[in-house]
Structures are given as structure tokens and as C-alpha cells.
């Protein structure tokens, strides 16, 4: 059931293809959503041109969180880059750590111990759960249902406790280093993790009852923000957003990394490609991550090195080369393009965050003909995190 707006009000187009909008006619209104606006994900803004309640043009404005990571990394040594990369994406920082570490390891020819690979996979799945929990709260919140956010943030907090005891920090874990991970699991971690997973599962059951089996929620989201499977590649759509459109893209299966080949899972795919389908795909993906964590904890080796011996990091040089490392984060394909030139500093790092394509080109396309009320829900459904757009 695709959303079919009434196009009779549509403004005509100028010869150069842009919309012919005369603001002084009083028919149209420029409305800024963000950056200081509760209905925006993070610190970004959308410049809406509205006619009545209908959005006829939307432009994403980013850059409010730009710190110039790619430049900063060019003047930091390879080890000094490691604490900084996680800041590129706040809610799920671990992918930055992994992709960066893997890129450095590949170019430096480091062999990571197997145990470290298992722990890395564990961390990535934990981060995925965190990110999805945050998304679920945000998706319900964008539609005015605050209680889901209360529950999911609480269980996310429990997961942050697990992160804290594992890595020593709540948000920026800085645990996955080039060469491996910093340390093994603490004592009793498995048991506490199992308790947390159970709490998550019970909360998700509640979420299913209250959010997904909800007449109003369905009314708002079914049919909203339809993405045609045909434009998935054109617009660089990846991850759950693509899977909700029936395109079974999942880097974990397509180009497996870490220990994913040894785990038993099947990508979650949806059909309807609307906001509801995307939310549902993410909910099921979350449950799959819970299952993956159980598999990992049951099968991971418990002893052995967690770090490859590093050269002295204070003057670590990496020979000339370039590579691209990708991983499947909760929002889609996350990748690091790293170029080295034989010196102690990266020549160039480019971070490919999935939000980059989702929040710009795709959002600007989907937002047309959408109701003002739905802008927030639509944007949240693409699960974008602004800091990874502008870095």
C-alpha cells in the first residue's frame, strides 16, 4: 500500500528543473526543521518548503557536527587515530573502531588472534543492539509515543553497563585497537550478559505489544515513506532500509568478516518498504543479534592472546597502499577507505557512513509530498546519525 499523494497542488517547474516556488505569493512557507527541534535526529536540519500541510521540497542541511575527522587523522599517527575514530558515530561507535582497525591491520600486515575476532564480533553485535534500541525509542517518540523510548533506553542502559564492565567506558569504548582488542571478558560477564539479554527480550515483547500491535502506529506508518526496490542501488541504500524493501543486502553474509562465517544466521528481510516495515525489520534484526550474542558466548575461545604483537606504536609506519573495509552496522554499510603512503600518518581516510546517502539524497526524495507531521517519523525511519554524514 504505497502512499499516493494528491499532486494537483504541485508547483510547476522552471526550465532548469527546479521547482517554481514564489514565497511572496503566500502560498508557500519555508519551514526549518532543526537543528534545534525535537523532531530531528541529532544535530542537523531540514529546510522544508510547505504548501498547507504538504511538503513540496525538502533540503537536508548538515555540517553542524563537522569536526574534520578526515583531516585530523592525517596529522595523527596510526595509534593516535584509534581513540578519535569512535567519535564519528556516537550511538554505535564500535564500527568505526573495527573498520579502522581492520584497515590498518590489512595494510600493515598484522594477523589478529582468533579470540580477538570473537570479542570484536561480540562488541559489534552489542553495539548493534544499542543502536536499534535507540532507534525503536526514537521511532515511537517521533510519533509521540514516549513510553517506548523510556523502556528501550532503560535496557540500552543495561547494555551500556555491560559495555562499561567489558571496555571501561559507557559510550566511547575505545576497545577495538589495531592489532586486536584491549582485554578479555571480565569474570561473570556471560551470566550478566544473559540477564541483560533476557531483559531485552522481555522488553521487546512489550514493545511488540505496545508499538507494533498498535492501531495508531500502524495508521501513521504503514505506507509512509515507500522506497521502490528499483532505486535501492541508485540511491546507495543499504542495511535494514534496503532489506525492508526486499533487497537482501547484508555485508555479514555477502562479504563475511570476523567470525560471521562461523555463526548461524539468516538476514532479516521485509517486503513493504515503508516505515512500518523498516521498524519491523530492525526489531527482528535486534532479536537476531540477541541470538548471535548467545552463539558467540557459547562458542568463543576463552583463553589465548587478544592482541597481535604491535610494533612500537610511537613510530609506527605503514607501507604504501590503499584499501576499503566494510561492515554491516545497524544502519547499513559502514566503510573505511584508507590510503597510506609509507609514513607514520594516514595519507587519507574516508569514512563511508550509511547515513551519508540515506539522509541526503534519499531523504530529499522521500520527503516530497509528505505531511509535515510525518517528516520526523520518516527521517527517523531511515535511521540516520548526522555525525557520520559530515564527520
Amino acid at each position, binding site marked *: 500500500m504505497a502512499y499516493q499523494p494528491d499532486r494537483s497542488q504541485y508547483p510547476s517547474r522552471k526550465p532548469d528543473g527546479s521547482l517554481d516556488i514564489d514565497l511572496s505569493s503566500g502560498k508557500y512557507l519555508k519551514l526549518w526543521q532543526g537543528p534545534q527541534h525535537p523532531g530531528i535526529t541529532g544535530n542537523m536540519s531540514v529546510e522544508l518548503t510547505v504548501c498547507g500541510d504538504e511538503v513540496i521540497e525538502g*533540503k537536508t542541511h*548538515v*555540517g553542524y557536527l*563537522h569536526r*574534520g575527522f*578526515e*583531516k*585530523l587523522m*592525517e*596529522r595523527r599517527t596510526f595509534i593516535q587515530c584509534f581513540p578519535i575514530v569512535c567519535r564519528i558515530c556516537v550511538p554505535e561507535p564500535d564500527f568505526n573502531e573495527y573498520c579502522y582497525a581492520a584497515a590498518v591491520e*590489512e595494510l600493515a600486515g598484522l594477523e589478529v588472534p582468533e579470540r580477538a575476532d570473537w570479542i570484536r564480533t561480540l562488541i559489534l553485535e552489542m553495539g548493534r543492539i544499542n543502536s536499534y534500541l535507540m532507534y525503536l525509542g526514537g521511532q515511537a517518540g517521533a510519533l509521540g509515543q514516549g513510553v517506548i523510548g523510556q523502556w528501550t533506553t532503560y535496557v540500552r542502559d543495561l547494555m551500556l553497563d555491560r559495555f562499561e564492565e567489558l571496555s571501561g567506558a559507557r559510550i566511547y569504548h575505545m576497545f577495538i585497537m589495531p592489532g586486536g582488542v584491549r582485554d578479555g571478558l571480565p569474570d561473570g560477564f556471560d551470566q550478566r550478559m544473559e540477564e541483560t539479554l533476557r531483559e531485552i527480550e522481555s522488553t521487546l515483547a512489550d514493545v511488540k505489544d505496545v508499538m507494533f500491535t498498535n492501531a495508531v502506529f500502524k495508521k501513521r506508518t504503514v505506507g509512509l515513506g515507500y522506497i521502490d526496490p528499483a532505486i535501492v*542501488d*541508485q*540511491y*546507495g541504500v*543499504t542495511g535494514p532500509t534496503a532489506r525492508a524493501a526486499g533487497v537482501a*543486502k547484508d555485508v555479514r553474509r*555477502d*562479504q563475511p568478516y570476523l567470525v560471521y562465517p562461523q555463526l548461524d544466521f539468516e538476514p532479516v528481510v521485509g517486503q513493504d518498504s515503508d516505515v512500518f516495515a523498516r521498524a519491523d525489520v530492525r526489531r527482528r534484526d535486534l532479536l537476531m543479534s540477541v541470538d548471535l550474542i548467545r552463539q558467540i558466548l557459547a562458542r568463543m575461545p576463552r583463553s589465548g592472546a587478544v592482541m597481535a604483537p604491535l610494533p612500537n606504536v610511537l613510530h609506527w609506519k605503514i607501507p604504501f*597502499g*590503499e*584499501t*576499503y573495509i*566494510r561492515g554491516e552496522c545497524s544502519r547499513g*554499510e559502514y*566503510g573505511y*577507505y584508507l*590510503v597510506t603512503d609509507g609514513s607514520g600518518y594516514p*595519507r*587519507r581516510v*574516508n569514512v*563511508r557512513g550509511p547515513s*551519508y*546517502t540515506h539522509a*541526503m*539524497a*534519499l531523504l530529499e*526524495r522521500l520527503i516530497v509530498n509528505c505531511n509535515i507531521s510525518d517528516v520526523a517519523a520518516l527521517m527517523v525511519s531511515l535511521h540516520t546519525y548526522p555525525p557520520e554524514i*559530515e564527520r
Partner: protein
Amino acid sequence: MRDLYDRLKTAFPLGELTEQRPDLAFVTVAKEQLRSLLLHLRDQEGFTHLVLLTAVDWLEEGNFQLTYLMNNRLACRDLGVRVMLPRDPASMDSIHDLWPTAATYQRELREMFGIDFPGSPRVDEDFILEGWIRTPPYRRDFDTLKFSDEVFAPRPGRASSDPTEFMKQQLYPDKT
């Protein structure tokens, strides 16, 4: 990857193939051939997904390297297409009509590297920065620390001693 390279080689003048991994390789192509190569890759070879488009500043050689990373998601492999551009003035054909997302990448390159993409939508608008009037920041000749120190003025009161010099001063005060 080698077979693909050999196939492409018959139709396009390509540089050497750099095989980074079994599923990732890089190849260099001339500026003029890029568009037809990308089209060929997209329509004939199944490289439908433009993963990223970015630039590397080889200041010493006076070149920009543009990297178009293409992904064939059925075959699960990637091909990075490199194009070398003279650094000044840097200008490149836009591919926003092939992939709408490319317009965003091109806006970023325009702002951060000063590479022009004539015809790309909104390419001259501010993208990330606002009111930036200096050298595009991602160019290698832009010194970000120097800029920051001058414009943002770090908090005074910080000073550090070098252990070597400090020890010489302390232990051999007359032999400095």
C-alpha cells in the same frame, strides 16, 4: 578480478590492476574514459552500487586522485576506479545523473578539496562548512592546527618541558 580486468582491458585503456584482496581491486583510468567505464561497469558487469566517491590529495605530485568505489553486490566484489586529476584547476565530469547520491559526494569534494563538478546539482552551495573563505580544508597544504591556534586561541597556561633538555639543565647546569 583478473578476468574482469582482462575483459575491461579490451575496451578501455586501463592502468595496472592493484589486487588488494580477492574481492577488492583498484584500477586507474583516464579522466575522459571514466564515465563510459562506470556506465559499462554498472550496466554490463553488475557493479550497480556506488559505494563511495572521494579524493586523495597527492600534493607532491600536484595531483588529485579521485576514487570511485563500485560494488557488485551479487558477485560480492568491489572495484575501485582511480582517476588522476591535475590539482590546479581541478575539474571533473559529474556523474550525478548515473547515481543521484553522487551529487552529495560531489558537493563535498567541491567544498573540501575545491574540485569542481560543473552541472552537479547544488554543487556551489555551502554543504558542510558555512562562510568558509580559506583554502579548502582537506587539501594537504591547509594546516588545521595553525588555523585553530590563530582563530580559536587555545587556553593559555600550558607549557611542557622536554625531559632531555630539562635533565641536562638540572644535572649539568653549567653545560647548557
